[in-house]
């Protein structure tokens, strides 16, 4: 099975839309290989399953079929049906069963195919898993990871029930950690950190990013949870973004280089708990801030980030913070109106121009 086949998703073979040179996270000379985002997730799962026999996977069609996007492909052959478990279509029970197994010593990595379907599982995720440790006064812990594909993409239109970005549903709930990797490097490192973490971690995979490739170190490493990552340092303007939006931010940043405008890009790779410090200092340093998120505008993640800038960097602000977000709309099917539902590089460029010219 060749590389390209591994990268095929259930909804067609995808091609990355940006150059991987935009983000380099491996030092020159460090032993590394190029992996796609989805391969990076897969390798993290594989390595953790080898390292710790308590780690296992459960979800719909993750076994032979490899999941809707092929992320778990080959793992069933390697680890067998006990540790790579197909479940019935029962999202709430998948999440709840992960909790139960975690309570008795396992370290489950559950999958809900699309974050959209997690509306069925919010009770087990947000009311049970997130709160069990607290409600029992620390008698237990719930070390699981819940993988969900989110956002637009998948190469093709998937319309209103397969395209949402819902990180805020989870970020609003104390007790959960929420991560959203933007690169193969982060995808692997955050997955390893998530699996080793003793809390329930919501791991949001970006459909747009599955085919994106990048260098990933050969060595065992983690990307710590709870930190933002500065993907590019700059001094004139801060762009705060997460997931696929980081790439638009990076591309926009690159375009401003020639104009002598230095853009810092802060990747909110852990959405919650939020690393307020990094966002606050960057904003204080540059005094100009753009926020980018794929989720719907109203009550989306940019609200929190913007308020945070207000709290931590108000006196340094030289312009009002500008945000670039998904449209306040269900995601439509037709191209003509799907185009424009999510931010693109040009939107970020315009926003940077706006804060620079204030």
């Amino acid at each position, binding site marked *: 099975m060749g590389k390209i086949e591994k990268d095929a998703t259930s909804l067609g073979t995808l091609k990355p839309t940006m150059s991987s040179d935009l983000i380099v996270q491996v030092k020159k000379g460090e032993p590394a290989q190029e992996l796609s985002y989805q391969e990076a997730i897969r390798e993290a799962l594989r390595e953790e399953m080898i390292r710790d026999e308590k780690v296992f996977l459960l979800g719909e069609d993750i076994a032979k079929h490899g999941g809707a996007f092929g992320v778990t492909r080959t793992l069933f052959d390697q680890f067998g049906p006990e540790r790579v478990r197909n479940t019935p279509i029962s999202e709430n029970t998948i999440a709840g069963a992960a909790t139960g197994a975690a309570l008795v010593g396992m370290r489950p990595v559950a999958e809900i195919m699309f974050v959209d379907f997690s509306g*069925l599982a919010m009770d087990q995720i947000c009311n049970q898993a997130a709160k069990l440790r607290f409600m029992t006064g620390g008698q237990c812990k719930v070390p699981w990871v819940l993988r969900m594909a989110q956002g637009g993409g998948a190469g*093709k239109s998937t319309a209103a029930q397969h395209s949402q970005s819902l990180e805020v549903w989870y970020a609003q709930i104390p007790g959960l950690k929420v991560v959203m990797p933007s690169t193969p490097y982060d995808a692997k490192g955050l997955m390893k950190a998530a699996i080793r973490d003793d809390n329930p971690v919501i791991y949001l995979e970006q459909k747009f990013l599955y085919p994106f490739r990048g260098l990933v170190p050969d060595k065992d490493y983690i990307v710590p949870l709870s930190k933002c990552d500065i993907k590019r340092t700059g001094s004139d303007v801060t762009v705060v973004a997460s997931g696929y939006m980081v790439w638009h931010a990076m591309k926009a940043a690159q375009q401003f280089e020639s104009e002598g405008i230095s853009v810092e890009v802060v990747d909110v790779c852990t959405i919650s708990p939020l690393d307020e410090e990094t966002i606050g200092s960057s904003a204080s340093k540059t005094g100009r801030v753009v926020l980018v998120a794929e989720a719907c505008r109203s009550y989306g993640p940019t609200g929190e980030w913007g308020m945070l800038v207000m709290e931590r960097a108000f006196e340094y602000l030289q312009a009002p913070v500008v945000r670039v977000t998904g449209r306040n709309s269900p995601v439509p099917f037709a191209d*003509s109106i799907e185009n424009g539902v999510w931010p693109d590089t040009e939107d970020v460029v315009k926003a940077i121009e706006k804060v620079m010219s204030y």
Partner: protein
Amino acid sequence: MDIDKSTLLEMYRRMVRIREFELTATDLFKRGQVKGAIHTYLGQEASGVGICMALRKDDLIAGTHRSHGHNIAKGANPKKMFAEILGKETGYCKGRGGSMHIAAFETGSLGALAVVGAGIPIAVGAALGFKMQGQKRVAVPFTGDAGSNTGNWHEGVNMASSWDLPVVFALENNHYGVSTNIKYTTKIEDLSIRAQSYGIPGVRVDGFDVIAVYEAAVDAVERARSGKGPTLLVTESYRLDGHYAGEPQVYRTKEEVEEYWKKDPIPRFRKHLMSNNIASENDLDGIEKEIKKEMVEAVKFAKESPQPDPDTAFDYIYA
């Protein structure tokens, strides 16, 4: 049961229309002209048609991700369906929904809902609405075998049964949920047993046999319409294509699929119509030709139709 000739021929017509629609859609898909996935109904034509032909136009069906067939069975127009799956303003949903969300209220399809099980509570509510308004209408939510493992399914059947609502729960056992054979996710083989949990009749029929399906559906619909409450109707057939067009099917053998092609409901029904002198080979060929022409025209219509105007992007979010 005595079924009149025009009904039988209409059944045949709709089965063929579904078949041709799906083959045409698959062809368009493979040539990269359809965005998004399509989930075809190949092999299940007798199930949808047998059930929907037992319904009145003002009865309502609720669909799933795999509802091209349900819509056509209920009378939908292939033009507006192709337009929809190509994302055109002339589509049933004005290009907002696409293949997985085709609704056609004008023919009694309240919508294809792509979250497995989601149509059930909605159909139950529609039936409640019928009952409260004294309308003698029936609601039919379709679910797959795998869909019957969802919480929605249990809650919906229970609510409908405790209120004696006019619902026929159509459970189409095509033996797979994506890649997973139902035997791995459900311990029982005969899913109609589940009706007993709700004190309602459970009926299981050969889903390749449109007449058997139709007869069982007529009974269930009659029961619902007369206020006696819901029925669970399980049709046994097979998903002859992959989960979606182009899906590699690594989880089952070619032989298994070929075995099931032998049960193809369309030649079987064709034979029945001919051997019972209901229609001649010529008649049936005529229908097929007519439908093929319909498809060509429908695709042409869809292709020539405009996409939604970007200025209308915010339409229909709120009433």
